[in-house]
C-alpha cells in the first residue's frame, strides 16, 4: 500500500466517522467537530487517492486548500448559529420534538 | 389572422374580457358592472348570430395554437358546437339579467359576476373545442370557475356543497384526463372529426378503446350527473338561484352531456361505437338514471332539490337519445339538449322568485302561490308541463323524437323507460301545480321580502327572464319545424353525422 493510498484509506474511515457523528451526536459543538472530521477525511481522500502513485499533483492540493477555506466558513457559520441558539434557549442541542 | 379564425376567439373574448374587467371593479360601481355584463352578453349573441349564418352557408370557422410540440389548443365552430353555443349564449343573457335582479344590494357582486363570466367563457370553450385536449382544458376551467359561485354565500352549508361538487368533478376530471392522454398516446392527436377518429387504429386496439371509452364516460358522466355519479347535483343546490340555473341548464350538466355527444359522434364515431358494443351499456346507464332521478324527485319536499333530481333524470334523455343507434334518436337527444335547458332554466328562475319574494323554499309551502304570483306561476306551469311532455311544449317534441328513435332502433324497452319517466314526472310536478293554483292562500307567507305593486308581483328583472324562457319553451313546442328552431338545427347535425345512412324523416 502506497502512502497515498494509506492517506485515502484513513480519509475514508474519518469520513464515515464524521458522518456518523453529525447524524448521531446531540451536542452541537460535537456535531460541528464531527463535520470537520468528515471534511478532513474527504480532503485526505482527495489528496491521497490522486497521488497514490507517488507523483505530486498540485491540482488536488489546490482543491483541498479551497475546500478547507469553505469548511472554515461553514464551521464559523455553524458556531455562530449554535451560539445564537444558546443565547436564545440556553441549550446547545436541537430538540427532537419539533422535527416532525 | 383571418376573420374566420378570429370569430371563435371573439366569442370567447366577449365574456372573458368583461369577466376579467369586472373582477377589478369596486363593489359600488353597479352601473359600469351591469353595462359590462350586458354588453358582453349582447356582443356574444351578435357574434353567435354571425356564426350561425356562416355555418349554415357552409363556412368553416377554426383556429389553433401549439401549446407543446404536437399538442394544440384548437377551436372550431361547427353545427353541433353551435347548438350548444347558441343555447348558452341566449340563456346567459337571461341568467345575467336575472342575477342582476336577484343579487341587487347583495355583497361580493364583483366576484360573483366575474366568475359568472368565466363560467360562460369555459362553456363556450367546451362547445368550440376542436379536440379532446382543448375540451378538457375548458372542462376543468368550468369546474374551477363554478366553485366560487356554488360557495358564494360563504356559509358552512354552501361550502360543504361546494366541496362535494369538487370531489366529484375533480376525480371525474382525473379519470377523463387518463382516457384522453391514453387516446392521444395511441392516435397522436385527439381532433374531433365527423364519423370519428378511433376507427383508424384497427381492430388490435379494440380492447384498449373500450377501456378508454369507459374512462371518458366516467369523466364526462360526472358532470352529466349519470347515476351513480350524480351525488353532487342535489348537494349543489345550496347555491343562489342564478347559479343553479347555470349549473342545471346553461353550463355544467350540459357540458357533460355535450361531452358525451362529442365523444360518441366525433371521437369514436357512432357506427364504430356501435360495432364496439359501447352504446348499449351507455343506454342502460342512461335509462337507470332517467328512472332513478324521477323516482327520487318524488320524495323531495325542498323545491330546488326536487328540481335537481328532475335534472338528473332529464339530462339522461339526451344520453339515451344518442345511444339509440339511428338518426332519429340522435335528433331527439340533441334537441332535448336545448329544450331541457329552456325548461329547466325557467323552473329555476321561478323557484328563485318564490324564494326571493315570499320566502318559499318547500313544496309544502306553495299553497296558493299562483294567486299571489300569477305570472311566475304561469311560467312555472309551462316549464313543468314541458318536463312531463305535454303537447305544445318543447318537451313534447323531444319526447316524440326519442320514442320514435327508440322504436326505429328496435329498442322497445327504451320506450317503456320514457313512458315511466313521464308518468313519474307528472306525479311529482302535478301536485305542485295543484297546490299553486287551487289551494287557498295561507295567512302569511314564510318571509315576504318583496311586496306586490299592481301587476308587478316581484322585481321586474326577476319576472322578465322566466317569462321569456317560458315563451321560448312554448314556441319551440308549437313551431318545431320552423327554420330557426332547435329541431331544424338538430336535423342538420344528424345529417352530417350519419354519413353512411340515408335518412328518412318520419315525424
Amino acid at each position, binding site marked *: 500500500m502506497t502512502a497515498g493510498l494509506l492517506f485515502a484509506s484513513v480519509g*475514508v*474511515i474519518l469520513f464515515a466517522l464524521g458522518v456518523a457523528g453529525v447524524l*448521531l451526536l446531540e451536542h452541537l459543538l460535537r456535531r460541528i467537530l464531527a463535520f470537520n472530521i468528515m471534511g478532513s477525511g474527504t480532503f485526505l481522500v482527495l489528496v491521497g487517492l490522486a497521488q497514490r502513485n507517488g507523483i505530486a499533483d*498540485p491540482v488536488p492540493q*489546490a482543491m483541498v486548500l479551497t475546500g478547507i*477555506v469553505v469548511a472554515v466558513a*461553514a464551521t*464559523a457559520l455553524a*458556531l455562530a448559529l449554535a451560539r445564537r441558539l444558546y443565547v436564545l434557549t440556553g441549550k446547545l442541542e436541537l430538540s427532537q420534538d419539533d422535527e416532525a | 389572422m383571418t376573420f374566420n379564425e378570429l370569430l371563435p376567439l371573439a366569442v370567447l373574448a366577449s365574456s372573458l374580457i368583461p369577466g376579467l374587467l369586472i373582477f377589478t371593479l369596486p363593489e359600488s360601481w353597479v352601473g359600469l358592472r351591469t353595462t359590462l355584463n350586458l354588453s358582453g352578453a349582447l356582443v356574444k349573441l351578435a357574434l353567435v348570430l354571425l356564426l350561425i349564418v356562416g355555418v349554415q352557408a357552409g363556412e368553416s370557422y377554426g383556429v389553433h395554437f401549439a401549446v407543446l410540440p404536437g399538442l394544440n389548443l384548437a377551436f372550431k365552430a361547427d353545427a353541433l358546437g353551435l347548438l350548444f353555443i347558441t343555447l348558452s349564449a341566449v340563456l346567459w343573457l337571461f341568467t345575467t339579467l336575472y342575477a342582476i335582479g336577484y343579487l341587487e344590494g347583495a355583497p361580493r357582486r364583483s366576484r360573483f359576476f366575474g366568475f359568472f363570466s368565466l363560467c360562460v367563457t369555459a362553456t363556450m370553450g367546451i362547445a368550440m373545442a376542436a379536440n379532446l385536449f382543448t375540451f378538457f382544458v375548458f372542462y376543468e376551467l368550468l369546474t374551477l370557475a363554478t366553485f366560487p359561485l356554488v360557495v358564494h354565500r360563504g356559509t358552512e352549508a354552501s361550502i360543504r356543497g361546494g366541496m362535494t361538487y369538487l370531489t366529484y368533478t375533480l376525480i371525474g376530471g382525473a379519470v377523463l384526463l387518463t382516457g384522453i392522454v391514453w387516446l392521444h398516446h395511441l392516435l397522436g392527436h385527439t381532433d374531433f372529426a365527423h364519423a370519428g377518429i378511433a376507427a383508424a387504429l384497427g381492430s388490435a386496439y379494440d380492447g384498449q378503446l373500450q377501456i378508454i371509452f369507459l374512462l371518458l364516460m366516467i369523466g364526462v358522466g360526472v358532470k352529466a350527473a349519470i347515476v351513480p355519479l350524480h351525488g353532487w347535483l342535489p348537494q349543489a343546490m345550496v347555491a343562489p338561484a342564478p347559479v343553479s340555473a347555470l349549473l342545471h341548464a346553461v353550463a355544467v350538466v350540459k357540458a357533460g352531456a355535450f361531452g358525451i355527444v362529442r365523444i360518441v359522434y366525433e371521437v369514436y364515431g357512432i357506427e364504430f361505437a356501435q360495432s364496439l358494443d359501447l352504446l348499449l351499456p351507455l343506454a342502460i346507464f342512461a335509462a337507470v338514471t332517467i328512472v332513478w332521478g324521477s323516482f327520487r324527485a318524488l320524495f323531495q319536499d325542498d323545491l330546488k332539490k326536487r328540481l335537481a333530481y328532475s335534472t338528473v333524470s332529464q339530462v339522461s334523455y339526451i344520453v339515451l337519445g344518442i345511444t339509440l343507434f339511428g338518426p332519429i334518436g340522435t335528433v331527439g337527444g340533441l334537441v332535448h339538449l336545448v329544450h331541457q335547458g329552456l325548461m329547466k332554466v325557467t323552473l329555476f328562475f321561478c323557484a328563485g322568485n318564490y324564494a326571493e319574494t315570499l320566502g318559499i323554499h318547500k313544496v309544502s309551502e306553495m299553497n296558493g302561490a299562483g294567486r299571489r304570483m300569477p305570472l311566475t306561476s304561469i311560467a312555472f306551469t309551462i316549464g313543468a308541463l314541458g318536463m312531463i311532455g305535454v303537447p305544445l311544449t318543447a318537451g313534447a317534441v323531444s319526447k316524440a323524437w326519442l320514442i320514435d328513435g327508440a322504436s326505429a332502433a328496435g329498442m322497445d324497452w327504451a320506450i317503456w323507460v320514457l313512458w315511466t319517466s313521464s308518468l313519474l314526472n307528472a306525479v311529482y310536478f302535478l301536485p305542485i301545480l295543484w297546490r299553486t293554483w287551487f289551494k287557498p292562500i295561507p295567512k302569511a307567507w314564510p318571509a315576504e321580502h318583496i311586496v306586490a305593486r299592481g301587476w308587478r308581483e316581484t322585481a321586474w328583472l326577476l319576472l322578465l327572464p322566466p317569462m321569456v324562457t317560458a315563451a321560448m319553451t312554448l314556441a319551440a313546442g308549437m313551431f318545431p319545424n320552423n327554420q330557426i328552431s332547435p329541431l331544424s338545427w338538430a336535423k342538420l347535425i344528424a345529417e352530417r353525422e350519419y354519413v353512411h345512412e340515408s335518412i328518412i324523416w318520419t315525424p
Partner: protein
Amino acid sequence: MKRLLVVLGAVCLIVLLLGAMHDLAPASVELHAAVAANLTASGVEHPVTAVLLNFRGYDTLLEIAVLLLALIVILAIGREEASNAEATVDVRLLVSPVLQTLAKLATPLMIMVAFYLLWAGSFRPGGAFQAGAVLAAAAVLLHLAELLPSWQSPGARLRLGLAGGFLIFLAVGAGSLMQGALLEYPLEQAGALILLIESGLTISLGLILAGLFLLLSRDDGETS
C-alpha cells in the same frame, strides 16, 4: 434503531470504499503534467499558486465569496444593537501583563511574516490565505490580550476592508471578461495581476477571518 442504521451504513461505506480503492488503474488524465507544461504561462512559479489563482482561479473567486458570505451571515443572525454595558464583567484584570506585552511585541512580527508569506507565494508554499490567516491570528491574539475589543457591527471603512479584496478580484475578473475570457490574464501582466489580487485578498482575508472570531466573541447581552 437510527443509531444502528447509521453505524451499519458507515461500516458498509468503509468496507466498500476500502475494497474498491485497491488496485485502481492509473488515472487516464494527468493534470500535473499539464500544470507543469503551462506553469511559465501562468505568471507564477509555484504550481499550487498557479492552480489556485490562474488555472482554477475561478474556484478561488467563489471561495472568497463563501468566506465573505459566512461573515455576512454571522452579522445577519446577530443582534445589531450594542451590548448591555452592565452585563460585561471587567476581565482586563484577569489578563496578565506579560501576555499583553508579548502580544504587543508579536504583532509587528506577525505582520511581517504575513507580508513574507504573501511575497513567497509566487514561488514556494505561501500566498494570500496563509498571510491572511497570520494577520487574523495577530488580531485574535490582541483580542485575547484584551487589547482589541470584539466587533459589534462593522462601520463603513471596515466593510470596505472586508469586501475590498473580493471586489478587486471581481474587478480583475470583469476586466478580463471584457478583454476575452473570465480571469484570463495577458501573459506579461499575469504575475502583476496575481500579486494585486493576492495583496487585496491578504488584507480582506485577514479581516474576514479575524471578523469571524471577533464577531462571535461579541457579547449578546442575553446570556445569564
